[in-house]
């Protein structure tokens, strides 16, 4: 009979612990390699599940009662305020950490080798996380929620800009179809709340759980976390530690720190709750949740280009990375060596300058419609900071691919430039856009309405 009391045996005997391998490579345990982001993300998800179930006990998903039920959670339920705050702040943390994790995985080339599928699963998980956050955003049914989802649903309908220009909207309306799929009608109401609630508490968490299971199983299948090629021949227990107890201690430590930080923030900062949703009084500015504000900024240039073309292109790019770049030699290395660092640095600089220049021109001098009032919307749709930047980034990446004969360098360039652009546009959308989406340096300058 096998000795099941060895460290490996303890791992293997337990259903939940068995997601871990018996042994783990040292390189995977380096804090500066992964920063523990994946594990942190997982624990944040655990917090979401736990606090979410408690909230679900007291929450009512009807437009008449949703708002008051949230208020009652905050005022009456003992500890309700804390639980709700934890749910809110951990959810924001999840989005941020998910993006950081994506960034880490990309820059360490961890999609290379046989990890392509896991990368794809990861991107799908990212999308589901965003949708979970977005569906949960609506549930308090306050002014913030209602108008954010209204904006989101209208971004989903941005194909209408194209079909309107072609004059075919009443025959072929994919924008309207997508919007109706999302919120069940032309305006946010009880149908939207009901389906968002169902998505948020059942379908999306289940999807995350299933995909997360596959994501973790793929790690096992792919031989653990990625590491540089110099460790390729480490077989057996060379450079490996027993998962029990070291990895367990690490995970416990991270779990406690994540809970501590989320609890601390929940104690001192309250999740926002504005007035009850009122369809007659739009917020001005009405803003989508912060992670969509980059897209909203692009949509302000052109609905179709910013709401459909660029996001879809970005997703296509993300999904295609492991299939366009197969230079396995770069796996496990942050920034892929000196060339890589240079490429990343230059791309970041180029992207920053380009975006800021375009923003400067737009804010100071206006854009096409201000200079040529009668100009056709086709021009506005095709020529704006979103399309110009996108086009130039693709061009730049292609040029680098040819110059350096390396798909990895091209990938680095394109990923860096697009990510920097996303961050800048998101920052502008969060902090520098005020009523009527006009540019203001600070909230103090916003006009009273």
């Amino acid at each position, binding site marked *: 009979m096998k000795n099941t009391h060895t460290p490996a045996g303890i791992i293997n005997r337990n259903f939940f612990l068995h997601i871990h391998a018996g042994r783990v490579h*040292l*390189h995977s*345990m*380096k804090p500066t390699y992964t920063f523990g982001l994946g594990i942190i993300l997982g624990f944040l998800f655990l917090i979401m599940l736990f606090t979410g179930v408690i909230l679900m006990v007291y929450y009512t998903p009807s437009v008449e009662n949703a708002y*008051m039920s949230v*208020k*009652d959670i905050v*005022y*009456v339920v*003992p*500890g309700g*305020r*804390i639980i709700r705050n934890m749910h809110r702040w951990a959810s924001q943390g999840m989005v941020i950490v998910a993006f950081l994790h994506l960034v880490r995985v990309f820059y360490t080339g961890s999609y290379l080798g046989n990890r392509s599928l896991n990368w794809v699963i990861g991107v799908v998980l990212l999308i589901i996380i965003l949708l979970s956050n977005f569906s949960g955003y609506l549930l308090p049914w*306050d002014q913030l929620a209602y108008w954010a989802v209204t904006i989101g649903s209208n971004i989903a309908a941005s194909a209408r800009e194209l079909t309107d220009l072609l004059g075919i909207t009443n025959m072929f309306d994919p924008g309207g179809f997508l919007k109706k799929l999302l919120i069940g009608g032309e305006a946010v109401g009880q149908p939207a709340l009901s389906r968002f609630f169902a998505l948020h508490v059942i379908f999306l968490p289940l999807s995350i759980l299933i995909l997360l299971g596959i994501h973790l199983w793929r790690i096992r299948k792919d031989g653990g976390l990625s590491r540089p090629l110099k460790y390729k021949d480490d077989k057996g227990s060379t*450079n490996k*530690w027993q998962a029990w*107890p*070291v990895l367990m*201690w*690490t995970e*416990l*430590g*991270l*779990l*406690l*720190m994540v*809970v*501590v930080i989320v*609890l*601390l923030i929940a*104690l001192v900062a309250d999740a926002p*709750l*504005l*007035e009850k949703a*009122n369809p007659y*009084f739009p917020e001005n500015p009405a803003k989508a949740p912060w992670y969509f504000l980059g897209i909203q900024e692009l949509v302000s240039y052109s609905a179709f280009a910013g709401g459909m073309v660029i996001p879809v292109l970005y997703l296509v790019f993300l999904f295609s990375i492991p299939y366009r770049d197969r230079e396995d030699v770069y796996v496990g290395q942050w920034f892929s060596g000196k060339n890589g660092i240079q490429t990343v640095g230059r791309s970041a600089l180029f992207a920053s300058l380009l975006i800021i220049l375009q923003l400067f021109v737009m804010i100071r001098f206006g854009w096409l419609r201000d200079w040529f009032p009668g100009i056709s919307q086709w021009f506005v749709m095709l020529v704006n900071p979103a399309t110009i930047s996108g086009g130039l980034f693709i061009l730049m990446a292609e040029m680098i691919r040819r110059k350096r004969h390396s798909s990895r360098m091209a990938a680095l360039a394109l990923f860096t430039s697009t990510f920097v652009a996303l961050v800048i546009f998101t920052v502008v959308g969060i902090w520098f856009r005020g009523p009527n989406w006009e540019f203001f340096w600070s909230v103090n300058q916003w*006009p*009273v*309405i």
Partner: protein
Amino acid sequence: MVIMDEQRYRQRVQWLVFIGAGLLLLLLFGAWISEGMNREWRKVQKEYANLLKEKGESGNDLVERGIFQVNLPGFNRSDRCISCHLGIEDPGMQQAPQPHMSHPGHYLEDHPLQQYGCTICHGGQPGALTKKDAFGQLPETHWPYPLLEQPYLQSSCGKCHLAIFTNRPSVDPEDNMSGTVGGMDVFLKGKRIFSTEGCLGCHQARGVGGILGPDLTEQGEKTRHEYSFQNISGEQTISNWLKEHFRDPEMVSPGSQMLRINLEEEDLVALATFVMGLAKPDIPFEYFSMTTLNEFKGNREPLEGGAGFSYLCSACHGKSGEGKNYNDFKTGVPAIGNPDFLRVVSPEYIRFTIEKGRSQRQMGSWSRDISGLNPPELDAITNYLYQKNGTSGRTGLYRLKGNRNRGEELYDEFCKACHGSEGKGDVAVALNQEGFLQRADNQYIMAIILRGRRNEGMPGWSQLDDEKLVDIMTYIASWRTGSVFERTPELPEADLEQGALQYHFLCSRCHGEFGEGETGPAIINRDFLESADNRMLYETIALGRPHTAMFGWSTDLYNQEKLDLQDISNIIGHMRKSVTNELTYIYQGTNPGQVDEGALLFEKYCSECHGKSGEGVKAPALNNQEFLSAASNGYLLATITVGRSGTNMPPWGYGDQEHPLLTGKQRQDLVAYIRSFQRIHIKF
């Protein structure tokens, strides 16, 4: 190669775990304390229990602690105020400090806590359990219905108790509202101000009023977000917005045409309190008073004339009808309380103007569909205005005897302009005429002098004092050579159908189809018929007026038909009946003036103020079609003749220091020219 030391790594991680665990325990413990034990309401309840103990009331100890609430399904809320305000129903807590103090006054007797809760009157956030959130006054609480402080708190009474159009206590003793509800003094003061400042002239409330401004029926239910605070520099509250708005509407709401309301600060507070109480809340109907419910449906007591004027007209026309001059208001507002206006205007003119309004001016139509006032109420307003003409109660003067010489001076001063010197006639009938003087007794003469003959050009002279009136009457009577025939015939019952036919065939050629006057005077005229008794009418018809075109119809002069008593009675009956009929049009009456000559005169004398084509520059527009349909030629003539003191319209019949006298013929020509502006004749 070894890149990391397992032992050291493990130790570091274990440190992380211990610190994390310790922090977590600390935070959990802290959370338990702050969220479970350290709640604001627990502290308040402990304080309250101590207060009870101090009072030595054993057995009254606050045994139960916890969150208390009043469930109010009718209001769709649950009020948790009593979790902190525990002493609210405890009479022993009257002197206690807040929040333990009991509710002042007898309000809770009429509004039991379990039925009404707290927030329906006081505002605030019912579900909250901290003072800041419960009051909902700070912007970060994001609550649109903040706690109301006195006196604005009184506005909540209006939600259920306000009957705008009822002033006196209602007849039904069960209906305990409207004026007799205690603690509403500021609100009721605001209601009084609302009723006298003429707000409903532009705004509607509960179906009554004008349509220039927004409907105010539910103004009190609006939240802060429905007001623009862009131009409000002080407190960002609704009550302050309202006060600023009353003081200077155009500054607060650019583009607004609302007139400023000049009131003292405490009156502004009262008016704001009232406006905040205009509401139609969505609560079960048992909570409202019957009168309020009826008003929502449109059932209300009819407005009396003075009240109607106050509510609707006084904002523009002034509380005593003084109007606004052209410096204050671009197109001016007529002074309908002006004595010179009141002595030439007819009730039909006023009623027509109220019904139709004046196109291209701010005076809208007040007909029922637009203003919510029903015809009897519009009649009441008309009467209220018309009765200010000062004629009532003075017709007994005819019995007195005055001074003939003084009367002659007065006659030359006032009457000669139309009736000619020594009463020989000019644009108006000759008075020094034997046939007239034998028919018309002093009673008739005095009545006509006092009230005038509206629509015909004879103004009333009620502004003269009694002595002067008697003197003029004496002078006119002095021309009488014979005596007045005093035989009063026994008139048989009139056959009105016959009378109408006879009138049409015999009289209408000279007196007009509707008795409005042609070559002969207007005889179906209320003032005339109310002043002339049947004797005078009979005598005039039967014997005629010698030396005029009115021949006697009972003599066989000129081979005309001979009318007997029955015929004349028929005609008189027809005349008296016709004057009570509803008018189809306001009849212009006859006017023998010359348009072309009138045009020249108009340009010379009138166009500077009234505009070259009568469009109105610093005087009313004379080419206004509603005006011309309301005004008869006689009204125009009278107005031109006597002018309008207190305004810039001079008396052209007399002339003054800056303006010449215009003869009767010239004035007739002007009337003809002004009449030529008329394009349409608007039905009544």
